[in-house]
């Protein structure tokens, strides 16, 4: 509240309230303007130009957008990114839910387990990707050591050498890295449900699955929506794990859409084209998020 005012600076209570509110949101507005709105406008502007890293830039209208439909790798990358998203989301969710259920009640030492499950979230994705590259290595990696010692494989495996195994181990690494975050979101949802509901359901003779489908899941709708949206956005925008673990290989089979944008902008120096792809991706994400919010809306 504004307690002291200069003389002659008379504001009504309502005006003061409004001003206070405005001052409170100003930092956010400024932040969003500088780091989102302005770059977004610049990106749109760039996307309408032939914009090399150095040399002359030229206005070309919608040409960058028209070129997209002829870009085979762009379509391949879209396909790959959505395939990856569809494959990686269920394990994160199911495992996240199981972990959240396991650490739900405040019993002794439960904090230790919550911490262990959450720990991978606090290291960066870049660091975790490097860590996994080492663990998956055919000569010094711990996975091959274990598999060889247990005689499960005849010789060291090149996990990142074939498209199928590559996808699987990357999903494994990402689930390990992100499941803790989903766990925390779902844990908050689980703990927001009053115990009385379960108790009365038990009195009525409801079993585990009935309670799950008629109490737990419906009441967690908002938390599920939040976790799902964050997880899907994260997967559609994935870059680090592919850039570090595979460099898009083997045989260019793991080039995600952001990876392709990065390549065009900073390897081929086609900044305008990269900007156009970014705008299209933004549109796709807005649509996807809208769809998820619609499906998971609170039904009155």
């Amino acid at each position, binding site marked *: 509240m504004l307690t002291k005012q200069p003389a002659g600076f008379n504001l009504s209570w309502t005006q003061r309230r409004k001003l206070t509110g405005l001052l409170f949101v100003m930092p956010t507005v400024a932040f969003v303007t500088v*780091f*989102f709105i302005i*770059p*977004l406008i*610049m*990106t749109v502007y760039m996307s309408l130009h032939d914009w*090399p*890293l*150095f*040399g002359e830039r030229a206005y070309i209208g919608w040409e960058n957008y028209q070129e997209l439909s002829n870009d085979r*790798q762009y379509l391949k990358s879209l396909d790959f990114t959505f395939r990856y998203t569809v494959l990686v989301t269920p394990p994160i969710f199911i495992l996240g839910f199981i972990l959240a259920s396991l650490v739900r009640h405040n019993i002794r030492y439960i904090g230790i387990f919550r911490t262990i499950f959450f720990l991978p979230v606090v290291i960066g994705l870049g660091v975790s990707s490097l860590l996994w590259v080492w663990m998956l*290595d*055919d*000569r010094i990696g711990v996975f091959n050591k274990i598999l060889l010692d247990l005689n499960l494989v005849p*010789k*060291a495996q*090149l996990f*990142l*050498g074939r498209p199928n195994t590559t996808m699987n181990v990357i999903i494994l690494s990402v689930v390990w890295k992100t499941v803790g975050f989903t766990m925390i979101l779902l844990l908050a949802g689980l703990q927001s449900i009053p115990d009385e509901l379960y108790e009365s359901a038990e009195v009525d003779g409801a079993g585990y699955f009935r309670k799950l489908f008629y109490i737990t899941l419906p009441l967690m709708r908002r938390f599920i929506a939040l976790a799902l949206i964050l997880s899907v956005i994260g997967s559609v*925008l994935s*870059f*680090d794990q592919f850039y570090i673990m595979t*460099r*898009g*290989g*083997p*045989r*260019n089979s793991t*080039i995600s859409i*952001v990876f392709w*944008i*990065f*390549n065009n*902008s*900073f*390897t*081929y*120096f086609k900044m305008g084209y*990269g*900007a156009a792809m*970014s705008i299209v991706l933004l549109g796709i994400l807005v649509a996807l998020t809208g769809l998820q919010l619609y499906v998971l809306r609170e039904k009155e």
Partner: protein
Amino acid sequence: MSIRKSFLLVLTIVICLGALSAAAQDDEVNMTMWVRSIPFQTQALVDQWNANNDSQIELTVIPSGEFVTKMGAAIAAGEPPDIASIDLIYTPAFAAAGQLVDITEWVRQLPYVDDLTPAHMELGMYEGRNYAVPTGVDGSFIVYNIDLFEQAGLDPENPPSTWDEMLEAMRAIDALGDDIYGYWFSMACAGCNAFTFLPFIWASGGDVLSDDYSEATITTDPTVGEALAFYNTIWEEGLVPEGASIDNGSNFVSAFTGGNIGMAGMGNFAIPLFTNDHPDLNFGVFHIPGKEGGAASFGGGDVIAIASGSAHVEEAWRFIEWTMSDEAQIEIYAANGQIPVRLALEDNKYFEGDERQRTAASALRVGHTPYTTVYNDLFNDPNGPWLEMLQVAILDGDIEGALDLGQERFTQIMEG
């Protein structure tokens, strides 16, 4: 990192650099110089210069992978460094965009102009004018393990000089044991193979680009397919460790230091590492041979240029000219195991006792570098056509398919 974040990052860096260079504009001549993070003697050069001259140079080392992006951003912001040590393959692109100062008149007056490494001189030219001169030069060659050669009954004094001789040597070494292999290549590293595999094609009289660099000759030049078949044989017969197929270059140098690899493509940059960190490694060096003989090398490294807009063009040239002097080339370059940029200086007091360094230096006599403004897209990009073609041909064994694929994607990129 999203585009937006990267863009902001670049923007921030540009602003910071702008502030820095503004602060540096004092009364005396202060120049800025950028170099990418490679182990050339640039810092030693700058220190020596600063100690003996009124004009001072402030050197900034930029991570190699980000050099061109940052240079481009700095140019766009109107604040490029005065002097830039640039990976030679990018020089045509920078010169074509009008970002480098034309130094033709000065270069022509150099008494040793015809003795400067030819690949680097060619890449430093654009439309008949000189924009850059060699500064950090390196050529590719083959290193071989003398101990393994002896154990396998091969004569280390007469290393292989054809592809068949190389294959025979690899087979003999490979037979020494389960953990011993004839060869090493990093088949998930695009740049490594431009450096060490292209010369096999060149030494046989072929190329992947036409003489005027205007079109791809992958399907029309039979040597390309033959060289791919040569490497495919190495892979099929298990003469390289299986992990070589997915090595992204992190083991490009270190694989050979294990002592269980018979031969590997290498550059001079690795020699000081081998001799200092692995004194037990008994190795020799020979030029990359063609199918039936001959020799070729990929001329790699950096050229040095003055950026357009520099306020100290003459002083910058004075520095550049000094870097090529006997004093700098022998007492800084050769003394530290770096190859001199003047061919005649391969005979110097520091290389005298070491045949390997002389051979490494002389590789640049047969050095060649593709001249194209889209080098990065064609050869260096880990997702580009060069590496994909190699992998499909060598690892999958589909040589015909790889050639068609390479020809198509090269042409697509070169036509823009």
